[in-house]
């Protein structure tokens, strides 16, 4: 952690506001409602991010508080990772047993390319689609695209778009769809637990938190698998993108745009 932490602890206004948000949201508690066959879970953390964002646009939060909040997210995630560490430890025998599934499901992250790239091209996006669809666009992948194509390239704009969406809505979105899909589809909650580890602490927490709320009996297994998978995604995700994800996206993009150009040429003629 290289950033300057000096005197952030003195920003009592920020910490008092967060304490108030926590007390309020935890008092409201978890609520759920059914949408068709699935369950949508509304957790205190989802209200917390929305209230926090709403307060930013009121005089209660000033630029200073918003800046000071960033290192606290990093340290908060550190505590979360420590908690996940002590959940993984006792489950280490089961995790080793499930090792093959854990390792191979990392390739599932390539599902992003197969679903998102055709949609992006179909919507008329050009080389932005490559930055957008090559991965789930967390920090390492943003770094990779910036390194390869530059900040002001179409690919760079694409990856930043997904990164910002993920930062703002990722946790809310993952929290809602994981609870919904796990109750609606026949897939096992532990499969979704492994899928929750996509390389972002807050998204993993939201997705696995919803799973725990929906299947409280499996709490420890769900958190252990999600945490292990997230660590694996964090450590292998970049290499997966460098060696498989990005080349595959480039190839598919060329294939798809070639076909599209041919049809448009025919239409033109």
């Amino acid at each position, binding site marked *: 952690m290289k950033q300057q932490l000096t005197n952030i602890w003195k920003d009592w206004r920020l910490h008092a506001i967060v304490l108030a948000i*926590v007390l309020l949201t935890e008092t409201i508690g978890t609520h759920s409602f059914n949408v068709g066959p699935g369950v949508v879970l509304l957790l205190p953390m989802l209200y917390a991010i929305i209230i926090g964002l709403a307060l930013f646009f009121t005089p209660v939060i000033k630029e200073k508080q918003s800046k000071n909040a960033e290192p606290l997210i990093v340290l908060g995630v550190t505590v979360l990772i420590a908690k996940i560490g002590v959940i993984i*430890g006792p489950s280490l025998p089961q995790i080793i047993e499930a090792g093959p599934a854990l390792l191979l499901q*990392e390739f599932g992250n390539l599902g992003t390319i*197969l679903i998102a790239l055709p949609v992006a091209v179909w919507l008329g996006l050009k080389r932005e689609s490559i930055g957008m669809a090559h991965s789930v666009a967390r920090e390492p992948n943003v770094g990779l695209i910036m390194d390869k194509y530059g900040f002001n390239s179409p690919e760079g704009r694409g990856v930043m778009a997904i990164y*910002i969406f993920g930062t703002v809505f990722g946790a809310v979105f993952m929290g809602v769809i994981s609870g919904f899909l796990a109750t609606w589809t026949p*897939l096992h909650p*532990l499969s979704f637990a492994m*899928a929750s580890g996509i390389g972002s602490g807050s998204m993993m927490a939201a997705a696995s938190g919803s799973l725990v709320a929906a299947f409280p009996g499996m709490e420890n297994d769900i958190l252990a698998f999600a945490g292990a998978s997230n660590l694996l995604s964090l450590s292998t995700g970049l290499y997966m993108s460098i060696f498989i994800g990005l080349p595959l996206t480039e190839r598919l993009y060329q294939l798809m745009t070639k076909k599209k150009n041919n049809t448009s040429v025919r239409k033109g003629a």
Partner: protein
Amino acid sequence: MLKNIQEWVLLLGIFGVVALAGNWIGYEILPTSAIPGMLILIGICLVGLILGDVLPGSLPSIAYVALVGVLLSMPWMPGSEYIVSATSEVELLALTTPILAYAGIAIGRSWTDFVKLGWRSIVVAVCVMLGTFLGSALIAEAILTFQGII
């Protein structure tokens, strides 16, 4: 370095107090029974953060934090039972609520960038997240079924 450690202790302490309050209100665990677990978690964080600073190599501190947590709590480690039972008094969801409260306040600043993106980016972003989530879940399901674990 010393100054850094001092700041880490103070900020982790503030975060811990907020999380313990949520742990009490939301999950009805009295702070008195959750304090030892929280102190252990903060201790693990500090060891990991210091290791990340001191050790050579480019591994992020978070990798060390996780590693320390796993090592202390694995069944072969003496005293791991106490670590596991003490930290189980701190609910995972009580940690995520304050993180996301801070996150909400922080992302307010990138909100205008986000609004500029337009609806097409949102559609693609939804597909990106659904794609990785469903892709991983399907592969995990197939292999866990094949191994007979589920």
